[in-house]
């Protein structure tokens, strides 16, 4: 790059990390592929730079290039400087001396980073030894300090445990302890909180913040999650197809994105704080993220851009990064107009094929409890799994994954079930369809008892309720063509006739795929397209109820919005009822009418989404809500977070009484003895808590 480097808060003084014109090339099936191109970044001491992008944008390759840990066959160009030390020209031996001391990284999966046969304390001690602490006693003391610093209770005890004995959140905190053992100048966090539950993520982010305040570490915070970045970073760089498309201070960038891609990402996000009109259409960016190296000519974003001037200049010339006021760098031919406010960079929120038009078509209000009988009624549902332990895999009792759940769902209504991993929400979804056999309780679908149904009856009921799974990669048979996949339910139910092919085509069109998809195979489609195929399959037999098990979790942000819009359209036009299982509260708030919050197999709070999310009465809902990052930096900074201490209780041995009491700040003796019933306790919606009330963060 020949232009000026990014100028911003990070530009003053000597940066802790300076990347100039970094390029990375890896060999591909048809010649070398440029996965990182012309990337320039600066991070000042004590600053956090958020590096945002979707899968395949080159974020991780950038991080690995800085660490000098690129795959052997990769080629690198450009300058990388760590506080005056050139890393790109350093020898491997020099790098070994720098890594772990002045430069450290935390990866996404912490299980792979920790050695399974070594006690965690010893592993942290090894990281300290690298820094030159030679006395064993000094090391042991430092290990305890570090574990304490990252928020591990009783460090002396946990230091003697092995990695598999720690929860995912604790392991990630140990990985952070190892990374900061020698107080590095620069810490790279590569999706370090992505695999964690939101309450644990809040803990880990809190740890990073405290460490930074203490040691003035520069943090390169890599994430796909704009919400997390909004709260964690002072500056943000957005990557697309291996290039930086926008780089600027977090507040300005979020408030007025200058690059159409940034604007698109922000418009695509559902929000938990109700800052978006109810049931508004999300701004889906059309198309698929361009993979680095396969970017089209000109601006890599132009095929998906709402404001591209085609062909010239957007489809012909690469836009160079240029200053666009308020310390911002934008690589867009139309940045000047956008910065001046004469051009709105946001994506059109117009209609999609298969739907009518924007905004969302009005839909008949779901019938309330006093109307007709609910489509789905669940009463006292209990589903357990045997637990085997020890070398001989002896049954050692049963886990109650679903421990007595009541819920109901009316025709045309959308009910969201939220909770963290292991709370039993997916088991609940599967139990409703009898994909797992419940132990006790009743499930009524359209008045028919699902649990009592025989083979034939069950098959008939399964035409009325269908399921869409999280990972379209796993939920489509790789050896069947799309046409065969969508037709299969019709064949199973003996409804395949002369109109079959036309019906399949119609279904594909409904989910926004064109007929050319018929003869394709899942591996030829993108993630979003695959999920649309899965939805078409679920719709084939004309169900009344769709169970959606994390339907957008595996998708990139820009693609996720399109699928959420599709779900909303389908619900409006077909009058479907949804049982939406999600860990993402914002998705539920956006898509659902009502929500049920689950904790360890039980529903702790339920009601209309607005009420539950705006006025939560259960401490767990309050903690959950406060932990969800909101993609709005000033709002995010102003929020008071409830940090839950310790780890979630084991479902094998749930606490007596209220299951949340071990992490609850309101718990008293009564909570330990008496199970709170789910009932309206004056808050307007049912809560299972002995001490409901407004949360500490208001």
């Amino acid at each position, binding site marked *: 790059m020949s232009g000026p480097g990014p100028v911003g808060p990070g530009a003053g003084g000597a940066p802790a990390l300076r990347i100039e014109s970094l390029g990375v090339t890896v060999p591909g099936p048809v010649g070398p592929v440029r996965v990182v191109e012309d990337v320039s970044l600066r991070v000042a001491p004590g600053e956090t730079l958020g590096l945002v992008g979707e899968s395949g944008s080159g974020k991780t390759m950038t991080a690995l290039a800085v660490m000098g840990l690129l795959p052997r066959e990769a080629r690198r160009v450009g300058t990388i400087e760590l506080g005056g030390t050139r890393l790109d020209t350093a020898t491997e031996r020099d790098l070994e001396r720098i890594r772990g001391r002045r430069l450290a990284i935390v990866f996404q999966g912490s299980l792979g980073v920790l050695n399974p046969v070594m006690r965690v304390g010893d592993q942290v001690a090894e990281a300290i030894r690298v820094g030159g602490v030679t006395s064993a006693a000094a090391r042991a003391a430092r290990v305890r300090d570090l574990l304490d610093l990252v928020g591990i209770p009783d460090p002396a005890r946990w230091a003697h445990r092995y990695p598999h004995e720690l929860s995912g959140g604790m392991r990630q905190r140990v990985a952070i302890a190892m990374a900061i053992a020698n107080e590095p100048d620069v810490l790279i966090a590569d999706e370090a909180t992505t695999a964690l539950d939101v309450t644990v993520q809040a803990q880990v982010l809190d740890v990073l913040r405290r460490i930074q305040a203490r040691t003035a570490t520069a943090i390169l915070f890599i994430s796909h999650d704009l919400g997390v970045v909004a709260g964690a970073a002072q500056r943000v760089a957005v990557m697309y197809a291996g290039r930086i498309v926008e780089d600027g201070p977090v507040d300005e960038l979020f408030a007025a994105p200058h690059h159409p891609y940034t604007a698109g990402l922000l418009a695509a996000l559902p929000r938990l704080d109700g800052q978006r009109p109810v049931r508004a259409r999300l701004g889906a960016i059309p198309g698929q993220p361009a993979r680095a190296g396969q970017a089209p000519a000109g601006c890599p974003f132009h095929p998906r851009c709402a404001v591209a001037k085609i062909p010239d200049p957007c489809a012909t010339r690469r836009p160079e990064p240029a200053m666009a006021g308020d310390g911002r760098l934008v690589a867009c031919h139309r940045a000047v107009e956008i910065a001046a406010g004469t051009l709105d960079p946001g994506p059109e929120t117009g209609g999609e094929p298969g739907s009518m038009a924007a905004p969302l078509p009005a839909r008949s209000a779901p019938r309330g409890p006093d109307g007709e009988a609910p489509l789905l009624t669940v009463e006292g549902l209990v589903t357990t799994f045997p637990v085997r332990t020890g070398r001989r895999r002896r049954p050692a009792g049963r886990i109650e994954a679903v421990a007595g759940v009541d819920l109901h769902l009316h025709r045309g209504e959308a009910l969201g079930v939220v909770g963290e991993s292991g709370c039993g929400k997916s088991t609940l979804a599967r139990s409703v369809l009898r*994909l797992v056999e419940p132990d006790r309780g009743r499930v009524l679908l359209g008045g028919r008892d699902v649990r009592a149904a025989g083979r034939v009856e069950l098959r008939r009921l*399964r035409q009325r309720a*269908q399921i869409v799974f999280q990972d379209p990669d796993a939920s489509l*048979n790789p050896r069947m063509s799309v046409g065969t996949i969508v037709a*299969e339910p019709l064949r199973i139910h003996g409804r395949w006739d002369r109109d079959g092919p036309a019906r399949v085509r119609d279904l594909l069109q409904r989910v926004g795929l064109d007929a050319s998809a018929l003869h394709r*195979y899942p591996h030829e489609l993108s993630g979003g397209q695959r999920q649309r195929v899965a939805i078409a399959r679920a719709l084939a037999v004309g169900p009344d109820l769709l169970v959606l098990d994390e339907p957008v979790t595996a998708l990139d942000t820009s693609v996720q919005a399109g699928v959420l819009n599709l779900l909303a359209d389908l619900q409006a036009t077909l009058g479907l009822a949804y049982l939406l299982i999600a860990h993402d509260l914002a998705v539920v708030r956006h898509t659902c009418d009502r929500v049920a919050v689950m904790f360890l197999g039980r529903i702790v709070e339920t009601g209309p989404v607005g009420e539950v999310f705006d006025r939560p009465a259960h401490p767990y809902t309050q903690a959950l809500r406060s932990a969800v990052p909101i993609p709005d930096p000033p709002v995010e900074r102003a929020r008071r977070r409830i940090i839950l201490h310790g780890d979630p209780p084991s479902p094998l041995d749930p606490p007596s009484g209220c299951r949340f009491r071990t992490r609850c700040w309101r718990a008293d003796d009564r909570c330990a003895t008496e199970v709170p019933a789910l009932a309206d306790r004056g808050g307007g919606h049912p809560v299972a808590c002995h001490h409901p009330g407004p949360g500490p963060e208001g």
Partner: protein
Amino acid sequence: MTGAVLPASPAGAPGPEAVASPWRLAARRFARHRPAVVAAVVLVLLALACVAAPWIAPHPPNRQDLLLGPVPPNRQHWLGTDELGRDQLSRLLHAGRISLQIGLAVGVLSTAFGTAVGAVAGYAGRVADQVLMRITDLFLVLPAIAVLAIALKRFGRSQLVIVVVLAALFWMYVARVVRAEVLALREKEFVEAARAAGASGVRIVVRHLLPNVVGVVAVNATLAVALAIITESTLSFLGFGVQPPATSWGVMLADAEGYVGTGQAYLLYGPGAAILLTVLCVNFIGDGLRAALDPRAGLR
């Protein structure tokens, strides 16, 4: 236009030939595996020669020429003759029919049976799995040669008996591999999706599970073929091979055994080379199939 719409296929409508089905991709990958392609060609030529033996063999396989006696390879008899004056090349081609038949039949039979057992055990789970797998273990610990010998004594040494007994001794390997694959596949969401759509167990096994295990099954089938040909020759060596006048490569090898180190050692070369070549080819083809049918392999 949204991302959901697939780009129009370049150059007109996508005819069926434009479809990159997993099978087509597999064929393309196999074609790129040089040793496998060469092996397949060699094996096909060998098999054709054996099948056409009655027409192309230079002499009737069992015509004796006691006056001629054993002669080393020459222009008249490319592989020489044995002490009865029988033309070795003609015998080799005819014997190949039987050896290859046995190999192929055992391969198909043991693979089919093993796949069925493995699929049922893996999908049904619980008691069926336990029972089937214990039976499999039982077969695995049987001393194969002893069982074969006893069975052949009891039922006679017909080709059919040999095939059935060999298949009964080889199906366990396929069954175990298929069971493991099915156990893993059963947890995949596409199987759950099929169940949610109301599919029957049979449909799930036939339509969803089996097409996804062809890779390992095909590879194991080739191994079974090679193993069958080798075991058949071992049996012949021990005197339990096919009965005269029919002959197999193993029987020919056994007949020539006494000549090691004598002037008639050339009798070993023909059948030995035939067995070696066949087994090698089959193994190479197995390698090629493994690479071609691995879903994780590159797509194009």
